[in-house]
């Protein structure tokens, strides 16, 4: 029987709990703010025998990902966690993990990159990893961080996916806030995640294989990349199936993109991560005033749910995309490009504007969201035209 427990704790500890319940075999991990409390909790689980896993205290994130790749190729379930500079240090290996089709699950506590030094939330780290071939999930709340982490294992290890997955939560805002969430009982969580059955394990002595082959000039590198591309494209349907199965167990339905008020929205904001809640909070108030405000939250960023986004936004009169990272020198932030290009194939043009907000944890005040909706109202009414990317709330 499925039993759930309502718990008050931080997002990080909910993630650690999901990791424990997923029964990983190897956990190579290096602490970095704001992911540290995940590592502390896992180390505690390991020390107290609450987790039957090899906890490897490595000397850097580069080593953490190296060990994760080695252990995953050996044929076991591997999970790690990082943030910010740590994710940046893993960069070259992120491509190796996905290229070798290793279903590693990694939690990232989304945090700004230096310089100047900053430990607070933005999406610069994770957006820097968006083309690494990993699947990327965003959480709005601690509950979503917990749920996303459990489904990540199933998605990564699905025989038609076999790709690494990053499950993320906004640094401090989600990772360190004490929040209310429901956790599944261990038995249910374990039954859902299931056993990992590797297809090409290095430590399968009866079926020896080689990993890490060369596919250089004239070799099939290009074909391997296409194979990888098809796997990530095809994963969207599989993710939806796995989410549906999880939702039936947990009673918490969710989707790869989630609309609020999008059925008849005139003005819509596209957003990822914790700010989705702030935006919905404002949209509710505006609805009460008769303004048809909508919110489109992207929960699965890789693979990018293009069709769902296009479908949700096609009726809007004006759309704003909120980016918590920038692509300096480009037209705007990364989410903006992708949303805008998703809308390109519509028969009519939906005006889209871009705001870069909340860099380095800069607080997302209610008044800022209200200002975005006001701008959208003005664009929708024709009072003003679309404008260039704006740094929202920057002095």
């Amino acid at each position: 029987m499925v039993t759930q427990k309502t718990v008050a704790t931080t997002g990080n500890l909910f993630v650690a709990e999901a990791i424990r319940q997923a029964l990983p075999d190897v956990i190579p991990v290096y602490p970095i703010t704001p992911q540290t409390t995940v590592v502390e909790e896992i180390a505690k689980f390991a020390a107290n025998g609450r987790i039957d896993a090899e906890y490897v205290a490595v000397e850097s994130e580069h080593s953490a990902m190296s060990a994760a790749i080695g252990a995953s190729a050996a044929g076991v379930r591997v999970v790690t966690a990082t943030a910010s500079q740590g994710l940046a240090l893993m960069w070259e290996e992120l491509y190796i993990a996905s290229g070798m089709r290793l279903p590693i699950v990694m939690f990232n506590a989304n945090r700004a990159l230096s310089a100047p030094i900053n430990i607070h939330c933005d999406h610069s780290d994770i957006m820097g990893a968006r083309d690494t071939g990993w699947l990327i999930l965003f959480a709005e709340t601690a509950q979503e961080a917990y749920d996303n982490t459990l489904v990540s294992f199933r998605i990564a290890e699905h025989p038609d996916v076999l790709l690494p997955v990053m499950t993320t939560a906004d640094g401090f805002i989600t990772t360190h806030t004490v929040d209310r969430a429901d956790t599944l009982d261990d038995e249910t969580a374990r039954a859902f995640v299931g056993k990992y059955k590797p297809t090409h394990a290095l430590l399968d002595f009866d079926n020896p294989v080689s990993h890490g082959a060369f596919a250089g000039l004239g070799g099939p590198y290009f074909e391997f990349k296409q194979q990888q591309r098809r796997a990530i494209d095809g994963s969207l349907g599989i993710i939806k199936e796995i989410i549906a199965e999880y939702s039936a167990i947990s009673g918490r339905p969710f989707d790869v993109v989630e609309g609020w008020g999008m059925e008849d929205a005139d003005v819509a904001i596209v957003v990822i991560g914790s700010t989705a809640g702030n935006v919905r909070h404002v949209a509710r108030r505006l609805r009460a005033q008769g303004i048809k405000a909508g919110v489109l939250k992207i929960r699965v960023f890789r693979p990018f749910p293009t069709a769902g986004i296009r479908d949700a936004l096609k009726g809007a009169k004006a759309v704003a995309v909120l980016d918590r990272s920038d692509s300096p020198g480009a037209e705007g932030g990364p989410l903006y490009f992708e949303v805008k290009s998703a809308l390109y194939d519509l028969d009519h043009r939906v005006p889209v504007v871009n705001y870069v907000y909340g860099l380095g944890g800069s607080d997302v005040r209610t008044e800022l969201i209200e200002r975005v909706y006001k701008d959208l109202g003005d664009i929708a009414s024709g009072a003003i035209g679309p404008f260039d990317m704006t740094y929202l709330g920057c002095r």
Partner: protein
Amino acid sequence: MKWDISRVNVWGAEEFPHGAVIPEAGNSVYYKVSGWRSQRPCRDEEACTQCLLCWAYCPDSSVVVKNGEVVGFDYDHCKGCGICAVECPVNRKFGRSAIEMVSGGSDLPEPGLGDANGTPAGAAAAISEVG
């Protein structure tokens, strides 16, 4: 089982194993991989003391030993690194060691131009089967 890659050059993306895994162990014995050898080891049987150091040091298992004695080299797999020649001890009686590197290099067609079947350059050495 033998992994059949005879049509590897026309395989589409879906025909390759996931993640460039090679699902057959030790299959390098099937392929001549000595294409870039520029010098080959040559052994003077008379001066050889059968110390087996060459066999122990060879990184490619290309020193052929039968009944506990070195009988020659596997030139399909020897890369010509010369480690055997360096490790081979001086035989006092002859005043020289038994193995020396001599010119002669590769037995394979010169890579870089592709073979008659249109195999891409570079891949030729890796995939042509010897039996």
